[in-house]
């Protein structure tokens, strides 16, 4: 159990930061030498801050002894999202998976309609042109509903 103590100690600053910054449903659990931190951050800034603390405590996250699954809590249902790829278009697929055929593309920085947040990884979206399918959620940033 001494390893358990040191692992929790190692990431003490992170769990404290999560508590102080108002992460909801915070759960810190250890299983088989891995620390799991789950919760809902009140904002994207808090989530980024936590990843910054993680990077400081374990440079480049390379020890691999922490799995941090802190999502930004959805205060309102997400209806629109901006395509935040690095520069390329975002693939729209028939189903949730890169093994699924591409049925369309959303342009970089295009605002799309989020039909359903199918999973943490894949969202069902619809473009202005009416193309509908699944895109990788990492490249979609929730937007306020555009006024039109």
């Amino acid at each position, binding site marked *: 159990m001494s390893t358990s103590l040191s692992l929790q100690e190692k990431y003490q600053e992170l769990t404290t930061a999560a508590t102080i910054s108002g992460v909801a449903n915070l759960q810190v659990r250890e299983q088989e030498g891995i620390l799991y931190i*789950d919760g809902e951050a009140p904002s994207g800034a808090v989530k980024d801050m936590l990843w910054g603390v993680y990077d400081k405590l374990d440079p*480049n996250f390379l020890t691999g002894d922490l*799995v941090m699954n802190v999502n930004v809590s959805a205060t309102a249902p997400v209806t629109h999202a901006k395509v935040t790829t690095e520069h390329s278009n975002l693939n729209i697929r028939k189903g949730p998976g890169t093994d699924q055929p591409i049925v369309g593309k959303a342009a970089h920085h295009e605002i799309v309609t989020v039909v359903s947040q199918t999973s943490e990884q894949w969202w069902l979206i619809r473009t202005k042109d009416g193309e509908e399918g699944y895109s990788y959620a990492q490249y979609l940033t929730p937007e306020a509903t555009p006024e039109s």
Partner: protein
Amino acid sequence: MKKLSTSILLMGILALTISFTSCKKKAKDADIKAAIETALKADPMSVNTMVSVDKGVATISGECKDEACKMHCADMVKGIKGVKEVVNNCTVAAPMPVINAEDEALTKGLNDALKDQPGVKFSINEGKIVLTGEIAKAKWAAVKQMLDKLKPKGYDLTGLTIK
């Protein structure tokens, strides 16, 4: 052996009879403890609970599934004859992390997350994600966030270089 257990049983019945017949007589702590233990054992909600009784004060400890179960436990003990007070030292067990141990689901998630990172190769070793290759720091930070969402059983990143 049989005789002994029979006599214990008889003594138990006797003790029970006395406690029933003379209402004012205090039930012995040991009897209360036994009654609580029997009740807890019969209750599906209490899993790893222990009890001690001192002068009618029952102290329950151990792990309960959740807050409701903890309250339920205390209420039940409170209802047992002879219990004057309940000290509820039960802790609520933290739910175990949901771990994605299925290689198939993990492989699919990894394929999706690493599709745009040709410099990184992955494999799965007993539920752990093993990554090798090179990746830029900014991209790695984003990839690690995606991978943590897959809830793996940990990582082996000894073969990964961050540029």
